[in-house]
């Protein structure tokens, strides 16, 4: 392969460009505003001059001889008839011009002080502390603007005022850019240091433009419209304006036109040059297209989210990526991703031909680009890349030797990187193994939805295929799904069992007993064919126990109610479940205690395996047993409904009593609250209690066979509150922690009496979702619903900005080899990360448990 030179940039120095350099590096001097001649060929000396680069296919650059895409373009220049201010440097010129003598152009600093300041400034410069240097220089110039007499030549100084955007006034007389430039030119090099400048990099007079650099054509390409018409870039338009006015100014000066005309043209030139640099200057109207659209000139190209920095430099576009809709597939592994064949045939991996894989690669080339495990390109040792087509196939098959590189289609087991935006944490980009599946969407195991925060309501995700060995190795070792089980945020597991698999495990460990045959069949069906059961009947707990190693010990902390209604906790001793039920608290996401303990002892691979096994068994069990849920689950018998209504009526009465007490003035004020507020507090408390009461009544009724309740108890989906709201009563609607108050004066809706303090008038919903809400209740419910919606909509951008700032402030911090945390300047931020040097994701929330260690070693 052709050896290419790898260069590394070690530093970048910023400086002003001098007029000499502009001319020296210029490929062409632009003298005419015309762009093309009659044939549509670029005019010599025009803005599209082919010495500045080419954007038309077929043309060759006059400077470097390159064709389109080969030539990166060359800068040109315009000689301005009169100097103009550079708008972005106006404030800097203003600072400097006030700090120097109007006569001798020396810096207005006392000769005694000069030496001291110079020493300090050069110290900063040597230490490369440019921030301090700038601050000090600014301090000096700020002090000097008030000085009335030059300490060097004793000339009297006048205050100079700025007339925005770019005119200086001294004693009500204008300082023209020519005069300003002259003053700046006279500053001796030795004084520049005091202004924070270094003549090597910047002379102040360079801030006033006499020659203007013209960016290459490639930076402002024109678009050819369907009609064949050319549409020029905004910058070309603006530069055209500048050249036109500049030429007119030249002509007028040469023709000896009256000063007033020259002045006007000069002003106009200043305007055009100003808007060329920055079209958002406050005091002047922005330059526009004929259609009235504002031009996007240099500053706007750099600034903001869509600007060069954030859009093109900090973020980049890549090849070998795919994006499509995701859908679930519980049968693939957690660390796999299913991709459609059509995607697999576009994404390729470069594979070098060796004697071991030559045969295989040849077969892939034979398949070509149209048959699935095929190949798309072959790269020759000289660096040339050839697409495999019907024509080239033959010759490539003959030519292929060791050392060639074949870009083959991805196959099962290849490494890929999978991502869902917004990428809020590192678990948003993980490494999955590719599995080519029929269909048109990406498939992922529902258990990895949580780290991506994905669901299947139309979400799309991105997939990348790393192209080098290094990238693949990093992806595999650092980004593999199993390495991301524990979040560095809190040390909890972000990946666990979800939904049906939890319900399955719950039912299995709680109440199920299988025959030996059934149990064996179950184990085999999830791929565990080595486990044998001895007894004729197998309890659910025994099946799960078979998944644990023999020395596994676990003591759950969550209280559970077992089959017989007794209170237990999940206990596993020597790999056997002694008591308790497996539920969301042990194997779920975020709080899977059992998974955490398992991870601590046996590491990531085994934990992932355990999760997969539990997941599969859970689902298989549900398939076997049968499990369904529907509206019928929320049916409750009439006598329970009556009970619910009765308890609501009791609460109503209590509220009425409270109001009566309030109106009679017998209510006692709570400390620090007014009487009205006290009443509100009590009422809200009462009404909130009602829902809990209703919840208790409703939860009493349904049998253990109610699927909704089973799911709620297992922690798989939903909770008792949801059930209460569906079948019992929705309860009090609250806005900002209070009952609903808004609306008309002294009432929420016009159908209530004024000053009605009762529950119905302030958003209590007596009905259940299933029975249906009446119009008033519906309205209140919609109010709280809207409030929640607004909250989310307003919060997202705020927290997004906070995150951007945080990431920006902290991105350079790293842990050094000596365990200190340092930033990019090598300043120590912490002597030991978190005071103990523990990684949150590697220890359970940053805690090394001494008790557990005793249990492990002493075997208790």
């Amino acid at each position: 392969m052709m050896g290419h030179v790898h260069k590394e940039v070690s530093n970048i120095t910023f400086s002003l460009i001098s007029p000499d350099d502009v001319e020296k590096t210029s490929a062409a001097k632009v003298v005419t505003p015309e762009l093309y001649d009659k044939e549509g060929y670029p005019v010599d000396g025009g803005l599209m001059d082919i010495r500045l680069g080419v954007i038309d296919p077929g043309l060759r650059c006059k400077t470097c001889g390159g064709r389109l895409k080969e030539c990166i373009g060359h800068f040109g220049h315009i000689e301005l008839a009169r100097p103009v201010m550079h708008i972005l440097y106006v404030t800097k010129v203003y600072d400097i011009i006030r700090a120097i003598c109007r006569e001798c152009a020396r810096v207005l600093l006392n000769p005694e002080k000069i030496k001291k300041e110079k020493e300090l400034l050069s110290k900063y410069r040597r230490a490369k502390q440019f921030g301090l240097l700038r601050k000090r220089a600014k301090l000096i110039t700020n002090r000097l603007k008030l000085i009335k007499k030059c300490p060097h030549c004793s000339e009297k100084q006048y205050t100079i005022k700025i007339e925005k955007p770019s005119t200086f006034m001294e004693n009500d007389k204008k300082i023209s850019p020519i005069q300003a430039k002259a003053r700046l030119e006279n500053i001796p090099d030795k004084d520049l240091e005091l202004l924070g400048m270094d003549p090597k990099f910047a002379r102040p007079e360079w801030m006033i433009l006499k020659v203007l650099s013209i960016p290459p054509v490639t930076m402002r390409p024109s678009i050819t419209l369907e009609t064949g018409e050319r549409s020029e870039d905004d910058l070309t338009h603006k530069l055209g304006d500048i050249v036109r006015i500049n030429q007119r100014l030249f002509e007028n000066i040469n023709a000896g036109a009256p000063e007033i005309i020259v002045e006007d043209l000069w002003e106009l030139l200043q305007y055009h040059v100003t808007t060329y640099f920055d079209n958002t200057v406050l005091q002047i109207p922005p330059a526009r297209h004929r259609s009235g659209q504002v031009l996007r000139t240099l500053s706007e190209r750099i600034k903001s989210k869509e600007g060069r920095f954030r859009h093109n430099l900090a973020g980049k576009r890549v090849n070998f990526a795919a994006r499509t809709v995701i859908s679930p597939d519980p049968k693939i592994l957690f660390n796999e991703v299913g991709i459609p064949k059509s995607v697999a045939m576009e994404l390729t991996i470069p594979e070098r031909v060796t004697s071991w894989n030559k045969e295989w690669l040849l077969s892939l080339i034979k398949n070509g680009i149209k048959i699935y495990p095929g190949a798309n390109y072959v790269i020759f040792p000289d660096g040339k890349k050839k697409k495999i087509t019907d024509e080239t196939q033959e010759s490539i098959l003959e030519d292929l030797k060791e050392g060639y590189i074949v870009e083959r289609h991805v196959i099962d087991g290849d490494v890929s990187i999978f991502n869902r935006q917004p990428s809020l944490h590192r678990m948003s980009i993980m490494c999955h193994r590719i599995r080519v599946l029929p269909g048109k969407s990406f498939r992922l195991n529902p258990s990895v939805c949580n780290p991506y925060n994905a669901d299947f309501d139309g979400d799309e995700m991105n997939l990348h295929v790393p192209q080098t060995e290094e990238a693949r190795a990093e992806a595999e070792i650092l980004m593999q799904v199993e390495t991301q089980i524990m979040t560095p945020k809190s040390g909890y597991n972000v990946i666990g069992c979800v939904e049906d698999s939890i319900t399955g495990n719950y039912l299995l460990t709680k109440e199920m007993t299988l025959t030996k045959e059934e149990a064996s069949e179950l184990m085999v069906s999830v791929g565990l064919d080595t486990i044998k059961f001895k007894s004729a009947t197998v309890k659910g707990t025994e099946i799960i126990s078979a998944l644990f190693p023999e020395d596994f010990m676990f003591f759950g902390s969550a209280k559970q109610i077992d089959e017989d209604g007794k209170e237990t906790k999940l206990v596993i001793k020597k790999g056997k479940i002694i008591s308790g039920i497996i539920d969301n608290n042990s194997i779920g996401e975020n709080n899977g205690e059992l998974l955490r303990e398992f991870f601590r002892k046996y590491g990531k691979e085994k934990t992932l395996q355990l999760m997969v096994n539990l997941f599969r068994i859970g689902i298989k069990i549900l398939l076997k047993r049968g499990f369904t849920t529907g509206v019928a689950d929320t049916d409750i018998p009439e006598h329970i409904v009556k009970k619910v209504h009765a308890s609501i009526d009791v609460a109503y009465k209590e509220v009425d009593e409270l109001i009566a007490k309030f109106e009679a003035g017998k209510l006692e004020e709570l400390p620090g609250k007014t009487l009205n507020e006290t009443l509100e507090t009590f009422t809200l408390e009462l009404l909130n209690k009602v829902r809990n009461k209703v919840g208790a009544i409703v939860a009493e009724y349904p049998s253990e066979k109610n699927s909704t309740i089973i799911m709620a108890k297992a922690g798989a989906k939903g909770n008792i509150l949801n059930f209460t709201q569906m079948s019992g009563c929705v309860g009090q609607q609250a806005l900002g922690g209070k009952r609903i108050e808004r609306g008309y004066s002294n009432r929420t809706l016009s159908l209530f009496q004024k000053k009605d303090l009762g529950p119905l008038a302030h958003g209590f919903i007596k009905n259940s979702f299933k029975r249906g809400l009446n119009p008033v209740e519906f309205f209140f419910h919609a109010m709280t619903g809207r409030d929640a919606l607004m909250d989310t909509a307003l919060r997202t951008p705020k927290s997004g900005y906070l995150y951007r700032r945080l990431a920006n402030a902290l991105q350079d911090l790293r842990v050094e080899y000596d365990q200190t945390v340092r930033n990019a300047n090598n300043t120590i931020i912490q002597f030991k990360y978190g005071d103990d040097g523990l990684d949150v994701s590697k220890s359970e929330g940053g805690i090394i448990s001494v008790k557990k260690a005793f249990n492990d070693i002493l075997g208790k």
Partner: protein
Amino acid sequence: METVAKEFEGKLPQKIINEAVAEAKKRSCSKDQLKKIIQYLKEQYDDARITAGEGIGIVTAESFGEPSTQMTLNVFHFAGVAEVSVTQGLPRLIEILDARKEIKTPSMEIYIKKEFNKDMNVVKKVAASIKETKFADIVTEFTINLSKLQIEATLHQNRIKDLKLTPDTIAKALGEGLKNVIVTSSPNKITLKAKDAENELMEIYKLKEKSKDIFIKGIKGISQVLPVKKDNEFFIVTAGSNLKEVLEIKEIDETKTSTNSLFEVLAVLGIEAARRTVINEAKKVIENQGLDVDIRHIMLIADIMTTSGTVKGITRSGITSGKSSVLARASFETPIVHIINASLVGEEDQLNSVIENVMLNQPVPLGTGLPGLVAKMIKGAEKGIPKGKAKK
């Protein structure tokens, strides 16, 4: 036991060793068992150590950024009780991280020395003495006497009694607060009259409004006080904060008294206390929202905000402005300003941090991009290798 403990000193955090020794005594383990256990703990500790090169900053930013999307925007919540409202959720977190000088709801928790903290009367007395009383608080009615061109304020007798004020002391305080005003007092009335002869009605009205704001008694800035009982102990929650003056009250327990105003802590107690306040306040917000973020992340943020010796916010004028790289600053906000300034001084970007290297398509100095390759050369072959090739 202690000898075993000594052996591992410095190899493990002392806290773990101490805990292990205590546990061993409780379970009456043998020396060998303890050694085995500590050895086991050490293995666990070494496994759980943070890897060198870990880009811990970005991990911290993620750990804050991700949960912040789940926080509520509900600004006010009551600090457990009654009237003293405190900003919470995302707005408060932003306030802390921005290091705002003026916070929306400054508040203090004033603890009382052990001798008095069970005595409600002492607590109430302290609370009353702290609360800032303005002239308007102790006046029932302001009247402008048009014939005499003066203001007459009727005093609220009960309040004055409660606050142990007399018309004379009030008049004195007013005299200090208002210039060019003649203050005369009678048992239930205070009269204000401007010294200047040309008394326009407008001026008198202005004077009336101005007098309402005059500070009479208490501690400036503390607008609400509320004695609260928690865990068998009384303390005072306030709206408004003035740490410096509160610390001078002799009944209070200065070791526990705190404020949520970062800059007050910085001014009164110094940078380390300010760091601690950042940690405490951020932790409060996160816990209040029911979220789970490890303390290490909060500590790192507090540390980076305070390493310079003053509190710097996580804003463009705070931490980002202190970055040495021009490109890093430019890529955050206001890029043009940074480039213009850099060009004048001839600033050099050393490309030491992450974002510049991303821009240039080069490996970033974090994680796997941090180490360089060091190769051991066979003797004799060294001559052929030019010196100084190995970078970083």
